[in-house]
């Protein structure tokens, strides 16, 4: 086994069969217009009736200091363990930090948040350090020197997410330990300064991983109402994503980068990048920016192409609808990273037993073999991918529909949705085309 060459990746899934792509595209079209024609005409989500409370014991447990402390301690121990591999480990592909960073953190946080809600917030090592520093100085970790400027919204997180996808998809030396260490050091540094300046509110808006996790967590069934844990339908939960500046930017970076990653894996792009006279790094950067900008501009344009109330400002519409991008993002993540998460995730767990590359088996996972069931079942994999994209699309269309009937004047509610619907169908067909031609 070649352990010394690449960091993570190299192998790709087979393209999805043509009939799957076509059937998926047709299903997306059919469902979209059916929703538009037949769905409710008055808002349905979070209209005042109380959500279904979870068992009171559950609230007690998740709010208890010992549970919070336990989860936080687990997250921080894991952070220290991986940081040790980063600082004292060797610059080899068997260093588990690569898999932890690119697979467990970036992709693994999505299913964890779908299952548990704001997962990264609960384990966030930077929140833990901020908490410890506040403890030491006798201050409150929630309060910083200043209040977080509202108009910044999610923009810092969008920037941080872009820094991540740039590192993952453009930066040529991302499989080397030095640059990865530097990226992480800058992340931790910025997060600690931000936390000191603005308190915990900073992480809610600026920590790329927390923002990703919390937004995806809105598709879980877990919510809060007056402090108590409640159960909500994922759509009602999604409807509660706070509308803040930069929300669309976050969605665009996530969706655009995933789409670009898929496009970059096509044989067409490989051959182009190897024969062009242009600097491949700049070409890749341009491609990434183009995909992200295309998602953002198409979405913003489509949401603004409608009649509105006199008191409303057109420029506010993109952020009002941006939550509907989240299910599309999750669908794409399933489609593009499922086998990657399952197989490289297992490899990472195996490698985690030997953080310093000296042959030790600290966690007892070192002798495990990777289960390649998913690779051996490409038909199942292809079906799951198409299903992921379609389910994401349907949730997005329904979420946008409910927002439209809530916000738009009666006579524009149907026509006002058309442009966004067309763009969403375009995203979905584009995504299926990428899966088909990978």
């Amino acid at each position: 086994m070649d352990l010394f060459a690449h960091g993570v990746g190299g192998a790709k899934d087979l393209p999805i069969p043509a009939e799957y792509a076509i059937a998926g595209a047709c299903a997306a079209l059919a469902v979209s217009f059916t929703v538009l024609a037949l769905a409710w005409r008055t808002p349905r989500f979070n209209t005042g009736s109380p959500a279904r409370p979870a068992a009171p014991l559950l609230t007690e447990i998740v709010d208890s200091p010992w549970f919070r402390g336990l989860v936080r301690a687990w997250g921080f121990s894991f952070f220290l363990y991986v940081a040790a591999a980063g600082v004292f480990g060797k610059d080899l592909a068997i260093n588990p930090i690569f898999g932890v960073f690119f697979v467990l953190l970036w992709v693994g946080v999505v299913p964890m948040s779908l299952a548990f809600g704001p997962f990264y917030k609960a384990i966030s090592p930077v929140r833990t350090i901020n908490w410890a520093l506040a403890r030491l100085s006798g201050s409150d970790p929630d309060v910083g020197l200043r209040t977080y400027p509202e108009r910044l919204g999610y923009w810092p997180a969008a920037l941080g997410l872009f820094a991540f996808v740039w590192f993952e998809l453009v930066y040529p030396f991302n499989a080397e330990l030095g640059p990865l260490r530097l990226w992480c050091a800058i992340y931790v540094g910025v997060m600690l300064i931000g936390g000191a300046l603005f308190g915990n509110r900073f992480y809610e808006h600026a920590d790329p991983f927390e923002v990703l996790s919390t937004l995806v967590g809105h598709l879980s069934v877990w919510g809060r109402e007056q402090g108590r844990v409640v159960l909500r339908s994922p759509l009602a939960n999604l409807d509660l994503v706070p509308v803040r500046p930069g929300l669309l930017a976050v969605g665009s970076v996530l969706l655009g980068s995933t789409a670009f990653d898929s496009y970059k894996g096509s044989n067409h792009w490989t051959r182009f990048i190897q024969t062009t006279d242009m600097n491949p790094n700049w070409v890749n950067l341009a491609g990434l920016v183009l995909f992200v900008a295309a998602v953002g501009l198409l979405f913003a344009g489509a949401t603004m192409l409608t009649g509105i109330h006199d008191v409303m400002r057109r420029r506010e519409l993109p952020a009002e609808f941006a939550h509907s991008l989240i299910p599309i993002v999750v669908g794409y993540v399933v489609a593009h990273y499922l086998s990657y998460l399952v197989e490289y995730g297992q490899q990472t767990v195996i490698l985690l037993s030997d953080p310093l590359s000296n042959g030790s088996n600290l966690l007892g996972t070192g002798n495990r073999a990777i289960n390649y069931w998913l690779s051996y079942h490409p038909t199942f994999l292809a079906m799951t991918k198409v299903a992921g994209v379609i389910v994401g699309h349907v949730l997005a269309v329904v979420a946008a529909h409910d927002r439209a009937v809530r916000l738009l004047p009666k006579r524009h509610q149907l026509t006002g949705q058309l442009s966004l619907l067309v763009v969403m169908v375009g995203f979905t067909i584009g995504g299926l085309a990428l899966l088909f031609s990978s």
Partner: protein
Amino acid sequence: MHRRRRLAAGAAAVLITLTAASACSSGDSGDKGGSSTEDASVINVTIKGDTVEPNGKRYDVSRNQTVEFVIDADEAGEIHIHSKPEQEIEYAAGTSTHKVSFDKPGIFAVESHALEKTIVELEVR
């Protein structure tokens, strides 16, 4: 009145989309992906200085089929196959032949890390 109109609009929409869907699905039913590939059991690779031929071309390979790499190189080196698990071919200067096979489906890049180039991609099914 409104409700009836809505129902009619809805029925029309469903009809249109169902027609579209059935029209769509009766179309092409080839089971291959969209990339153009070439079937090969022998792949000739030429590595001279910092150029390599082929330059990223994709080949169709069957599972457990033996693929023969015939490598013509001006100096010794190694190429990596990003299969699951990864494989490595070490070659000497001159012409040499190397056999590999794959038990799992997928698209596997064959790369020269010294040149940072994808030589070929193998589409195994």
